[in-house]
């Protein structure tokens, strides 16, 4: 009887060990082997990002962490008013895309990076608008022009470029594309 108890303990330990293995996310998929459903480790969001500097510019300090953990589909509902207020404080009326304040706010607030799967990918190159983000794209100047440049792009000339127009190292034509480290 004592021996049986020991075996039972041993067996449960083995089962526990097997569970443990699945718990760390590296074990075999037990459901495929006809065993217990797999226990999978839960990963919780820490940070989130798409377009450059959107959170930096438009979200107040008290809500920055909240913005980083709001799913994109919920951003418009939660942050639209903040974005309109910020554009108002910038004196925004329109931009070279002809977007009025409310429309521009609604474009900006859902922070996803649109990318073309068929054509040229560029943040903005005069032809393509938000079809991706290439390494060499001067995304900051694009955002500054769209925010401060007015309907012609010529308003507030002191605010529409940071006058840093290229990276300090050349990018590569082939994978992995980014330059070697300093």
């Amino acid at each position, binding site marked *: 009887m004592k021996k049986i108890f020991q075996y039972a303990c041993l067996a449960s330990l083995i089962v526990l060990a097997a569970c443990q293995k699945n718990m760390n996310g590296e074990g075999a998929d037990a459901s495929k082997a006809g065993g217990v459903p797999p226990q999978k480790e839960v990963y919780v*969001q*820490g940070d989130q*990002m798409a377009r450059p500097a959107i959170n930096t510019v438009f979200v107040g300090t008290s809500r920055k962490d909240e913005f*980083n953990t709001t799913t994109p589909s919920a951003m418009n509902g939660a942050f639209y008013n903040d974005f309109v207020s910020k554009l108002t404080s910038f004196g925004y009326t329109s931009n070279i895309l002809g977007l009025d304040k409310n429309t521009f706010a609604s474009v900006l607030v859902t922070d996803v990076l649109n990318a073309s799967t068929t054509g040229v990918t560029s943040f903005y190159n005069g032809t393509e608008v938000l079809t991706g983000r290439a390494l060499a794209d001067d995304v900051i100047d694009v955002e500054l022009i769209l925010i401060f440049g007015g309907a012609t792009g010529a308003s507030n000339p002191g605010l529409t470029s940071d006058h840093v127009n290229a990276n300090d190292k050349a990018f590569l034509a082939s994978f992995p594309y980014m330059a070697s480290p300093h």
Partner: protein
Amino acid sequence: MKKRKIFITAFVCVVVAAAGIIYAADHIDAPAVTSKPTDITDVYVFRGQNPDNLVFVANTQGLLSPSATADAKFDEGTMIEFNIDNTGDNVEDLVIQCIAKNGNMRVYGPSEPKVTGTISYLNISDLSVQTAITKYGQAPAIGEENGIKVFAGPRDDPFFFDLVRFRQVISGQASSFNNPGSDTFAGTNVLGLVVEVPKSLLGSNNGTINVWAESKTATGSTSVN
């Protein structure tokens, strides 16, 4: 404190009176802005050298000085997840999950997430490619399987921006940018993660996808899924 914004507080301008030089200091600062593996600095999505492919880049741990770069590591408890919406509703239909393990970067997917939103489970059965994480000073190690390529390791920070002046403008301390500006990110590195994927795996019907990157941390707790 996340992303570029965190660096705002980092740019304490140290006036070296004797020399009359102003430094934008980035590594002398408060612990709160010490680069964390969860801090995504930038996301890029662009057409590959092979135009049938799309390249996804997510960089973390910004403003690494060259002397600090060799010690920068991907955290094995942090998943970097590219979220891809291919239906236009800004909800992820596919995820590419990347996680470091034993010196390798493993890439899972693109495949459907078990759940959408701020919680994820690793798509264990969808391992597509892995590579050794490139060490500082070594030639890039590139993994390629199933038409998918991956690189992970230190790279020059591709971002360029006069962030110091920008902060002064936004806070009302300056009324315009300098010309020429000063690239706050010149001479600094990031931990780069580059994944190149055939467009045919991205399932876009209308020629556009919406992408965002998330860092997700292992909680230690589990759930049946």
